[in-house]
């Protein structure tokens, strides 16, 4: 379509058609990149499964004890797996300069962050949640807890991905950010953990757990609105270092 002769500089007075990539294009590229790093996808899942398999070795194999600990342990491990995988959320884009290019795009950085977080959830939070009933079974959790565990993890890990993105953006310019990221993000995870395990506990005790899920959904809505904004601000700060 374009021969060498037709190369032309766009007239600056013309309305701009360099709108930058839209949200779906951002999502597609992020997904493509994630699928090309399959090892990175498997690691959080393997971590999740391995540590939970260590639990009975640590506390003993009594079914009642394991069942009592299962919701909390599964939730804490999901939290750690999300956190560990999040250090690299912006890192390669920061190092190769494409994060800087994104900040120069006319598209708000909000959508770029949201696309990245969505893909992060698709490749870590979603598989973690889908895997959780299997682990719950191995840890002897009564079947009554399965639906609440799955649903609370689906909503909760999305929250965790969003909140963690702020920490990942703040620490992206630092060389060894892993522990620092955990330090600054963990306290912010507290409400998600409380309501996530609360939902499972309520289900086990035979109560309705829709309130806890509603709170998690509310937290997710708030995080989806605010966290990408904060992360976008943090990216601009980190790029100036």
């Amino acid at each position: 379509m374009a021969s060498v002769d037709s190369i032309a500089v766009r007239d600056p007075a013309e309305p701009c058609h360099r709108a930058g990539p839209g949200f779906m294009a951002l999502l597609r590229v992020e997904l493509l990149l994630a699928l090309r790093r399959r090892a990175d996808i498997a690691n959080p899942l393997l971590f999740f499964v391995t540590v939970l398999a260590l639990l009975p070795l640590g506390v003993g194999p009594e079914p009642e004890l394991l069942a009592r600990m299962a919701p909390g342990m599964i939730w804490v491990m999901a939290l750690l797996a999300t956190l560990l995988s999040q250090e690299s959320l912006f890192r390669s884009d920061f190092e190769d300069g494409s994060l800087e290019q994104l900040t120069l795009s006319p598209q708000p950085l909000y959508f770029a962050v949201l696309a990245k977080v969505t893909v992060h959830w698709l490749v870590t939070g979603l598989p973690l949640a889908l895997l959780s009933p299997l682990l719950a079974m191995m840890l002897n959790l009564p079947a009554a807890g399965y639906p609440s565990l799955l649903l609370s993890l689906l909503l909760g890990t999305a929250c965790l991905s969003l909140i963690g993105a702020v920490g990942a953006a703040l620490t992206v310019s630092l060389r060894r950010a892993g522990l620092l990221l955990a330090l600054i993000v963990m306290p912010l995870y507290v409400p998600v953990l409380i309501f996530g395990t609360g939902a499972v506990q309520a289900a086990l005790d035979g109560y309705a757990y829709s309130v806890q899920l509603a709170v998690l959904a509310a937290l997710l809505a708030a995080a989806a609105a605010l966290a990408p904004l904060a992360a976008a601000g943090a990216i601009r700060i980190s790029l100036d270092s």
Partner: protein
Amino acid sequence: MPVKANSPACLQVRDLSCERDGRRLFAGLSFELNSGGALQVEGANGTGKTTLLRTLIGSAGDAEGNIYWNGAALPAALPQLRESLLYIGHQAGIRRGLTPLENLVWYGAGEEDALRALEQVDLFGFEGSLCQHLSAGQNRRVALARLYLSNTPPLWILDEPLAALDVAGVSSLQGQMACHLSRGGCILFTSHQPVALAQLQRVNLSDYAVAADAFMEEGAYGLG
């Protein structure tokens, strides 16, 4: 699409001073860059070349003075400036997990256009391999291929575009820059080596340096 004769692409800098870590890098810098003009920023390491570039595109904070894009003052005019900007920084902005072709398409190029641009930077045959498998110099050339696309934005800001290029690459890039200028674009770039362009202004940041041991007046503080 031909550019009108009185195209307003114009970057003006008035009495700019940049600061980093509480130290003035340079002060009193003024220049004007019009359609068809190029400006080479020179200066020893640490004189603030990259800081100047990043200030102009609105990515670095501590600066005083006025910058105008097409007559409108920054930072209000920053969105307009960024719409007409092609910036290649020290980090080239090439995603290592994508192929050169995908990278250029990501920057808004059509596929044929991208292939032709890659051919011009001597990357024919590499368009399908992942950038992480290419050498540093090849990655640099993928970034520079953005300059060979059709329909590039009018303002190019390039940080050391000639670094890591061989002789043929340098002359090809100079040709492309001249071509861009002849179409009414403007280019601001840093480089240590001389560049053969017809309408080239040069600014040496060492001439605007502030002595490091001079104590500052308070002027730089307060509201930014």
